């Protein structure tokens, strides 16, 4: 590592609307190192990254950058453009790509190569091809329309964009959040490739495996403060988690509650299948939490959508509380007492400009069959039982934190008193406190005799909460494991390394 660090941020402070989110945080990144920035959601990772990217500007502190020819100098970015020019590129979770444009056009967006003042499309294509080749990506055509690409390829496009900006430092915010296993491998290759080329990477994540696989040093944030900065070699996963969460992993998941007992089968699927999943046999009993595990794209969400009638099963049978039913629309599912907490809260779960109350009522208002004065009156109680933190029921939900927004989503479904609840990534992107609240809520629901189908890409969640784990591979059920199984067992099925004997392949 070189003497002068590439980047050194000192005493960075930032607060939104008087709420401090960063207190005097320091961060130094060496030339060509892969530096992990970890911490639970809400710890301030994203804010720090966005300050670096010029999306937000810091209230306090200094940023010294030591890029390219220009020696070390103080910078404070007020626009992403400035950051880019200074050699700092960022890849955020929500992609900054235009589906209507080609890969090349996206890679060069805002910096189109020009000949005699005019856009030079050939150069654009060539340079894009070069960059992709550099990154060892062979299977992506510069002319391809981004809207038609897989998540992985879109992310590659993003990274190519960063590289083509001649960035010395590339910040990646939860880059693997939406990637399948194979794709994660690809990303690993990319990051290592970048490192070889002397590019530094700020790797924002809370996936321990990746951090230990990839990173040289780790900076840990908690509640907006710098907790620790150490070489990966000098720290164990457990310590790291402790540093992040302040408690050990075993303590993370609440015990199942007294008197929780698996009862009648409430949701039964036999030979369920459609264009995305096939041969699904599934039983979820009252009081039972069934985990759906599997890699991204293995069909987890597709099963949830099929059960809920968004993309219905086209074959097989479904029974709810023993009654056969063809669920063709969400309305039907809701009528049958099924609830779905969707993966993408903002896009699918909430009307952000409406009040907490309006959102919490939405399911009751939308479905005559579940609407009742009694249930309406339960809503305030529900909200407070979820420890919702809001200025009042009239506050617009967009002003709430991710965790509290998720609580509103859960509340709107519980208001309908469902018999079966499907939770798709219920804890994605919410702070640790809210996570734990949700964990215990899930337990309570089971105790109250609901059938819970839990989908989570964080295996640990499924393992920690589920009574049974159904593992999917490539759209089919690869196998079933008892709760508390090891990650290895699950991965064995998930990656298709092991297929269940009982099932003819």
């Amino acid at each position, binding site marked *: 590592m070189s003497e002068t660090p590439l980047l050194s941020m000192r005493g960075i402070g930032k607060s939104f609307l008087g709420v401090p989110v960063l207190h005097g945080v320091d961060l130094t990144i060496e030339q060509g190192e892969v530096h992990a920035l970890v911490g639970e959601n809400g710890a301030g990772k994203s804010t720090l990254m966005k300050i670096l990217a010029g999306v937000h500007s810091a209230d306090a502190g200094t940023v010294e950058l030591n890029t390219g020819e220009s020696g070390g100098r103080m910078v404070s970015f007020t626009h992403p453009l400035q950051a880019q020019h200074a050699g700092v590129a960022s890849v955020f979770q929500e992609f900054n790509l235009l589906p209507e444009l080609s890969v090349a056009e996206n890679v060069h967006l805002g910096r189109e190569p020009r000949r005699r003042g005019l856009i030079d499309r050939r150069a654009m294509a060539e340079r894009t091809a070069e960059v992709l080749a550099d990154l060892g990506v062979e299977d992506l055509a510069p002319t391809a329309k981004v809207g038609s690409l897989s998540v992985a390829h879109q992310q590659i496009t993003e990274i190519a964009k960063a590289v083509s900006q001649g960035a010395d430092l590339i910040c990646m915010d939860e880059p693997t959040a939406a990637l399948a296993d194979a794709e994660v491998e690809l990303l690993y290759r990319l990051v290592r490739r970048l490192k070889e080329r002397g590019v530094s990477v700020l790797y924002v994540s809370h996936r321990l495996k990746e951090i230990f696989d990839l990173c040289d040093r780790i900076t840990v944030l908690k509640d907006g403060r710098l907790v620790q900065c150490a070489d990966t070699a000098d720290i164990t996963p457990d310590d790291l988690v402790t540093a992040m969460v302040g408690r050990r992993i075993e303590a993370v998941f609440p015990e199942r509650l007294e008197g929780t007992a698996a009862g009648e089968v409430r949701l039964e699927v036999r030979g369920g299948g459609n264009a995305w999943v096939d041969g699904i046999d599934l039983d979820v009993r009252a009081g039972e939490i069934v985990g759906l595990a599997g890699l991204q794209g293995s069909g987890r969400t597709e099963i949830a959508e099929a059960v809920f009638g968004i993309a219905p099963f086209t074959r097989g049978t479904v029974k709810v509380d023993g009654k056969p039913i063809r669920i063709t629309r969400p309305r039907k599912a809701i009528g049958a007492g099924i609830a779905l907490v969707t993966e993408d809260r903002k896009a699918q779960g909430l009307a952000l*400009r*409406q009040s907490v109350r309006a959102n919490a009522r939405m399911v009751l208002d*939308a479905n005559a069959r579940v609407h009742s004065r009694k249930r309406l009156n339960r809503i305030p109680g529900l909200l407070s039982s979820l420890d919702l933190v809001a200025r009042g*029921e009239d506050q617009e939900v967009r002003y709430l934190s991710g965790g509290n927004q998720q609580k509103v989503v859960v509340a709107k479904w519980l208001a309908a008193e469902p018999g079966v609840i499907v939770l798709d990534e219920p804890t994605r992107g919410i702070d640790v406190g809210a996570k734990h609240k949700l964990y215990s809520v899930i337990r309570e629901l089971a105790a109250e005799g609901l059938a819970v189908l839990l989908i989570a890409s964080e295996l640990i969640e499924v393992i920690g909460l589920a009574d049974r784990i159904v593992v999917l591979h490539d759209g089919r059920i690869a196998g079933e494991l008892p709760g508390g199984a090891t990650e290895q067992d699950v991965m064995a099925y998930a990656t298709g390394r092991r297929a269940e004997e009982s099932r003819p392949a």
Partner: protein
Amino acid sequence: MTRFRDLIAKAANPTGTVFILLALILVGVFAMNPGFFEGPSLMAFLKQAAPLVILAAGQYFVIVSGNFDLSVGALVGAQVVIAARLIDGEESRTLPVILAMIAFGVAVGLVNGLITTVLKVQSFITTLGMLLVLYGAIRLWTGGAPTGSLSEAFRQAGRFGIEDVPVLGQVPWALLIMIGLGAGAIALMRSRFGRVLMASGDNERAAALSGARVDAARTAAFVLSGLSATVAGILIGGYAGVSAQVGDGLEFTVITAVVLGGVVLGGGRGTVLAAMAGALTIEALFTLFNQMALPATLRPTVQGAILIAAVAYAARQRARPAPAPATPTATATATPS
């Protein structure tokens, strides 16, 4: 109690802008002509404002659900012409014709709604097309200029009222209808339908996944707009009789009114009360112009300037950052609805 809190909230948020503006304009009118606030002239004002207010309510439903209805002006015109031609002076036909008009209004709204929701044509285009179709079809049918005439009974609603009320003089039927429908509209927005409509305008996907019939709700909004145009037609026809130009350009006036009421084009924002207030504001503005004897040709200029200024102001209000830090609702247990 809740209602009172709601009112406070309304005055505070951008939608409140319109009430302030309305107040200012009325003050202006008063300054020009104190007589304006005497019962009779006030009643007269409300009588001629009623149709636009009702149209605004109708347009509100469409806009708040994330669409436009550019066809209302043409529809109002069509309705009046239809009434004149079908009634043709026969008192006895009044009721059946009114029923026919209502049916027609519903039909037009239904077509707008279905084309927009089922065929996925942007409402701007759908209703623009409908505007052309109605404009042409109605003239095709009457050979270019309205024929026939309205019955006395038909004209009651728009023209007359309860006579000799102390202080007020005549209380116009139009006013009562306006209040009635206005209350209805507010009630409707507080009903499950209204909430679904609002949610659909804000986040159609989330609404649909909550089991809302988004397309049905939006179509219903167009139908309501068609109905409001029908009522407006009945009132305007009743108020002033038939003329070839009835309804011309009303669509823009009414959209202006709704937006002035702080309702955001694109949906999910604003209250129907404010939208109707917006309509009143426009009418009050025209009255003010008249009182000031502002040269007729200059009025559009002033109107345009005020429109842009008001909307810009509201936009600024809305852009203001989120309210102060949050505290648990454990305490806040207001009853729903």
